[in-house]
Structures are given as C-alpha cells and as structure tokens.
C-alpha cells in the first residue's frame, strides 16, 4: 500500500512540474509584451526596456522559470501587471467562490448520477430505464450555459427563489452566499451527472453479469441487496475514473458559468486576465487549476486502492 501511495505521489509531482514548464513555455511563446501593455502604446522603447528590466523579463528563460516556479512553491505568485497587487491576494478572494462552487457541483453530480445509474441498471430494458437514459442523453447533448440560462429564467426570473447572478460574499452570511451559488452549481452539475449516470449504469450492468453476483443471489439475498452490497462497489472503479476526468471539465465549465452568473471567481479572473494580457495572473491561475486537477486525480488513484484490495497488494 505504501509503495502504491509513494508511486502515485511521485507521478503526481512529476506531472505538476511538467505542466508548469508547459504553461510557462506557452505563455512565453505567445505574442504580446506585458511591459509595453502596461505603459501603453505611446511609451518610448527606452521606457519599455527599463520596465522590462524591472520586471525581470530580460533574464534568461531558465532563470525566469526557476524564479517563477520557486515563487509558486512559496505561494508567492508575483504581482499582477494590471491591478498592481500581489496575485495571491486576487486568487485568495476568488478561490472562496470557485472552490465551493466546484465542490457543490461535484457532490451534486455524484448524488444525482449514482442513484439514477442504480435505478436504470436494476430496470434494464424497461420503461424506467429508457426514460432515465433518454433524459441523460439530453443532458449530455445540451451545453451547461444553456442550462444556466434556463435555470435563471425559471428560478430567478419567474419563481424569484434565488438571485439571477452576482455574489454577496461570505460576509453576508452563509445562506445568501450559498443561495447565489446554487443555480450555477446545478447548471454545472447536470451535464456531468448525465454522463456519469450513463457510465454508472453500464458499469453496474457489466458487474451484474459477473459470476459472483449469481453466487450472492444463491446465498438467498434479494436482488436489491445484491445490487447495493456487491455490485455497487465493484462498479465504482470506472465511475471514479470518469469522475476524476470530469473534474477538469468542471473547472473549465466554471469559466463560462461564472461569466453567465457574474460570479467573482477564478474563472472570471482568468478570463479578464487573458483579455488584459496579465500574463502573471494567467500563469498563476492556470497552475492553480492544474494543481487542483492533479490533486483530484491523485485522490481518485488512492480511492481505487480503497475500493479494490487487488491494487493494495500489488506492488
């Protein structure tokens, strides 16, 4: 088990380093001089050069990478070119919006998908299954921002249950803050839940054909008990895999959803930073998202071992 853990940790760390190199290199390659952008089009070449020196943009590439990466490790992300405040302060404000949003969406999609998968698998080929999977098919096909608009129309404009957008801040109390995250989370979660439900259904159906299900039935356990006690845990492996992969899409989805709902989250920060060529902010936020995806996938790898004893004993 410890060997498995160590191996996974090393792989995760290596992925993170590699990703940081790619992020850094890509932003080096794309055109646009941040110093020129900060000073405006009318600044002289000398002025730009002075600022470039000040910002350390003229140092060798490797050195700048090491400096930047070293800063990341100590949570010193540098200063934003446009806001002239430490990036970490910007990020800190936004994380408290985006992280709860992503987590609520993840929890919601799992909470919807697993029961729907169980329902469909246990009624395979019957009307209930067909309806559930038809709805899921629709959910897979429809983009989340369209869902978002429909949800706003229904719950905010028509029923007036929740705000249509904006974020009051956690200072305004937990409930108002949560309420404004509810619709965006649902909009993010539904398409994900649709995919996950289909995966859960097919994984369960495959497991239900296994010999050990028949053994459990021969013990005298009712179908439903067998489904819960024997099938579900074995079907979790593919479900976890998809869950890990979906997390990346969930984060990408927050960029769109935060813009639709005017949420001051990381997604909006990233979007604005890109339009303003605030490269240091872009780099930092992207790295943060990369780290989050890697961390979640590490968790998924570790939960495989929790689910499946065969992975624990393998070296």
């Amino acid at each position: 088990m410890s060997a498995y853990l160590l191996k996974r940790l090393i792989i995760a760390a290596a992925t993170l380093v590699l990703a940081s190199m790619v992020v850094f290199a890509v932003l080096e390659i794309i055109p646009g001089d941040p110093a020129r952008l900060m000073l405006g089009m009318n600044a002289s070449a000398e002025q730009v050069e002075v600022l470039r020196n000040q910002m350390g943009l003229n140092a060798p590439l490797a050195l700048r990478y090491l400096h930047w990466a070293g800063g990341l490790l100590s949570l010193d992300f540098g200063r934003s070119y446009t806001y002239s405040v430490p990036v970490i302060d910007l990020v800190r404000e936004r994380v408290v919006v985006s992280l709860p949003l992503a987590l609520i969406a993840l929890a919601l999609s799992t909470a919807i998908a697993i029961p729907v998968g169980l329902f469909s698998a246990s009624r395979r080929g019957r009307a209930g299954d067909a309806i559930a999977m038809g709805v899921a098919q629709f959910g897979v096909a429809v983009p989340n921002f369209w869902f978002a608009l429909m949800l706003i129309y229904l719950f905010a404009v028509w029923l007036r249950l929740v705000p249509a957008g904006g974020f009051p801040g956690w200072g305004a109390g937990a409930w108002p803050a949560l309420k404004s995250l509810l619709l965006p989370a649902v909009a993010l979660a539904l398409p994900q839940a649709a995919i996950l439900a289909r995966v859960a259904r097919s994984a369960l159906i495959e497991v239900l054909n296994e010999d050990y299900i028949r053994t459990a039935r021969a013990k005298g356990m009712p179908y439903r008990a067998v489904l819960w006690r024997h099938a579900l845990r074995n079907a979790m492996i593919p479900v976890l895999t998809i869950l890990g992969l979906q997390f990346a899409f969930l984060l990408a989805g927050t960029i769109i959803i935060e813009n639709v709902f005017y949420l001051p989250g990381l997604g909006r920060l990233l979007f604005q930073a890109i339009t303003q060529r605030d490269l240091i902010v872009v780099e930092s936020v992207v790295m943060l998202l990369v780290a989050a995806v890697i961390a979640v996938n590490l968790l998924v790898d570790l939960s495989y071992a929790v689910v499946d004893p065969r992975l624990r004993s393998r070296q």
Partner: protein
Amino acid sequence: MSLLEIENLSLSIGDTPILKGVELAVAPGEVMGLVGESGSGKSMTALAVMRLMPFAARASGRVAFDGIDILAASEDQMCALRGDDIGMVFQEPMTALNPVKTIGEQVAEGIRWHTKASRAEAEEQARKILDRVGLPSAKFPLSRYPHELSGGQRQRVVIAIACALKPKLLIADEPTTALDVVLQAQILDLLRDLVAENRMGLLLISHDLAVVTAMADKITIMRHGEVMEAGDTARTLSGQLHPYTRQLAQASMHVPARPRPHTAGSARPLLQVDGVTRDYPGRRSSLFRRAAPIRAVDDVSLSIEPGQSVALVGRSGCGKSTLARMILALDKSTSGTIRFSGETITGRSEAELKPARRDMQVVFQDPYGSFDPRQKVEKLVAEPLHVLDKKPANAERRELVAHALHEVGLGPRDMDKYPHEFSGGQRQRLSIARAIITRPKLVVADEPVSALDVSIRAQILDLFAELNQKLGIAYLFITHDLTVARAITDEVLVMHEGRIVERGKTGAVLDHPQSEAARALVRAAPDLHRAIARRLQEQG
C-alpha cells in the same frame, strides 16, 4: 419421499424451448448425477430449481422442494430457501467470489442474512465451516481476499458459502471442471464427506461421465433439453441400453486409431530443449528489498522427434504452459537453449525466427477466445501465411485455405463465414486448420480438447491422429487430462513444480508411474472403466 421432485418441467426463452418435460428426483443423502453435453439443459435445470433463470425464461411443470412448489413460490420464499435449504456451487471458482470483499465477509454474509446472527457469531460460524472445507485459520484467516487464493482454494470457499447453513440440497454445477485432476479429486472427496455428514441431497452436474459415475448413486442423462435415460448409475452404465448413453460412454473412452505408431530413435530430434529455465520477478516484500525471483521452469530438457506425439502433463501452475511459450518463442528463457530443426531459436530476433515459426504452430484451449469475431474464416485461417517467404497471391491463398479446411473436415464454403457461425467443435477444427496451413513440422496444442464435449472431443482427437499419420506432424500436447494423453501420444513427460520428474512411453508411465507427482496424477484421474467396476460391486 423425495427431497427434490421435478415433474414434466419445460422451459423456454422466447420461442426457443430449452427444457422439454424434464423429470428428476433427489432423495435426502442421495447423490444424483446429471450428465449431458453443452446445451443439453442441465445447467438450466439447476437454475430452475434455484429459480435463478434468465428474466425472459418461462417455465411450466412442477418443481417441488421439501413440499414447496418452487415455480409458484414468492420471491421472498425463494430468498429464504436459497443459501439456507438449497446451496449451489458453480463451475468457475476464479470468478465466483466478489473480488472486493474478504472471504470471511462472503461466508458470514449468508449466515447473517438467514439466521439474523450477530457479526461475531456469524464470523465464528464462518470460521468453523472454512476449517471444515480445508481452509484452516492459520493460513486462511477470514481477512483474506479471493485474489490471494488459488482456484482450488476459492472453490472451497464457494462450497463453504453453499454449505454454511447445512442445506438439505446442494446443487453443484460442474464444480471441478476448471480444476486440475488432483484438485478435482480433493473437491469431490469433500463433497462426498459433506453429503455423508449431513444427509444432504446432492445434484451433481457434469459433462464428465467418469466423475459422475464415481460420485453418483443415480444418474440422469440429458440431451437437447430432454431426459434420455435415468436410473441407478451401475445398471445404467453397465447396461448402456439407451443408444445415447452408449454413445456418450464410448466417446468418453475413445482412443483414435493410429495404425503406424511412432518408432523412437529413428531420426535426429526435431525439437531439442536443453537446460531451459525461466524466472519471473517475484513480489517485493518491502520497498527497498529486491524480490526473490519465482522459478516457473527449472532446468528442463526434452526432445521430440519428427512425427512423434508427446504429452506434457502436470497440475495447473506446474510450468507447462510457460515451457510451451518458450518453445514457441513467445517468451524468452532465462537460461538454456532451445533448438528446432537443428537451429537455435533462443535469443533470436523476430526476423530470424520466421523459418521456425513457419514449421511450428499452436492450437489453444479455448475455441471461443482464439478468433477475432469480426474477421472471416478465410482471413483467420490464412493468418500464419505471412511467415512464408513468398506471400501467396489471393487465388492461391484461397486455395490453401480451402485445402486446410478440407483436411479438418470443413467445406470450402465455410471460408466466407464468421467464427460465431460455428459450434465449439467446428471452431476447434478451424484453429487446427489455421495451425496446419503452413505445413508445420510441430504443433503445440495447449489443452486442445478440454473445453469440448466428449463426442466432439473424440472427433477432434481422431482428427489430430489422422493429421499425424497423413502429414507426419509431431505434437506436443499440454494437458492435465490423462485420458487425452493415453489416447493420442507416444511419450509422456510429467512436470511438477517447474521440473520434468518423469518421462517414458505413455502406457508405461500411466500404468506404472514411478515419481510421486505422476502417481498423484494417475490416482486422481477419473477413469470410467474403473468407476463402473466399483459401482457394480457396490450396487450389485
């Protein structure tokens, strides 16, 4: 008064009738053998007793267990019966246990479900039954997972699950088919003891007439969903009044004719294996210590002459398949040399191996798994032709395929079919056609008939014998079935724990085994002649 009574049981799935008027009865303490070839409906009969048939199945007739009408019982009643009064053991022990639960959990689960015992009580009872089936607590604590157990040990766990609550009836569906003969004998002994201890009725389902004869008091023979013959085992099998019974018995003991047996020492060896060893990396005990390697094949030497048929027998896990893979140059030996037709093949590149590959082909055990289901027979059978120096043109290729199909008893029209259009036996013919299309000098056959029904098996053995006589192909038969070895080989090599422990003329080794390993194999091997003789003594 019978424990289980099946009267006029018919069952169909959609419009396809599976069972037609099946009659069968099992009394307490009695062993009823249910014999038939695949598709005869014997497993479906068992599932009908458990009422675990596929959803689409429709059954009529009467199945009565201990006075309860099974077909009319509610699902709750059935759940109460299953695992408590009726236990069931299945064919494939490797997949019959849930991989993510410990054996203790899986045995205790049924006990808790039926008796409402506390976890501790149920585990205590689970411990007892595991001890009883031969899995003592020192080596097999309840916390073991199925993947840490071998096939025979897993089958013991399945038997423990089925027998934990001392059922009145145990249904065993091919319980030993996936096990080697020595394990088979042990499991059959265990079942026999459990029947005697608890006066349990046993419905033993098998395609192996010898196994059933050795075990069963009474026998029911099925074919195409119908009962052909039923009665006392001794009388039924000694009389062989029903033509199908006779056919089954003869096929089980079939020895193909080989008018010109191989005479040894006539030529220089076709295959020469010298001191071959294969190590696999072992499991690491800690992160920093190197694991001790596992020696799968240990200093093995052997030789096969042209046209000679040699059996490599041994228990599962003894290294015979690893050895075969090295002979076929599909695996690299750790040390030692293998020479084929005078050429060394160990340590050669794929290009240099081409001539050897042409002269050496393989037939695998599973006729279902060894073909790509999306390719036509022409392409599948022609596959080995790519090792020829000069690739045949299309017309010539079709001719070669047609010829190979003809030699294995199939027609040229079969060329344009897909594998699923063939039966198991026909598929094994296809794999033989694929093996002989390059006119090889040696065919390695890994358990080529063990997945086949007895009558098909007899036909395939005949085919092997005929091709040996006609084309002079030498065989290396890898098998744990001594009847196959006896039927078709000149010489036997007995392998045990990676080593060859005995070799000699087939008849001599099987009649007078010298090594302990060979004696154990011979003792455990089911033999229809012996079993019938013993039955006749017992039943008069």
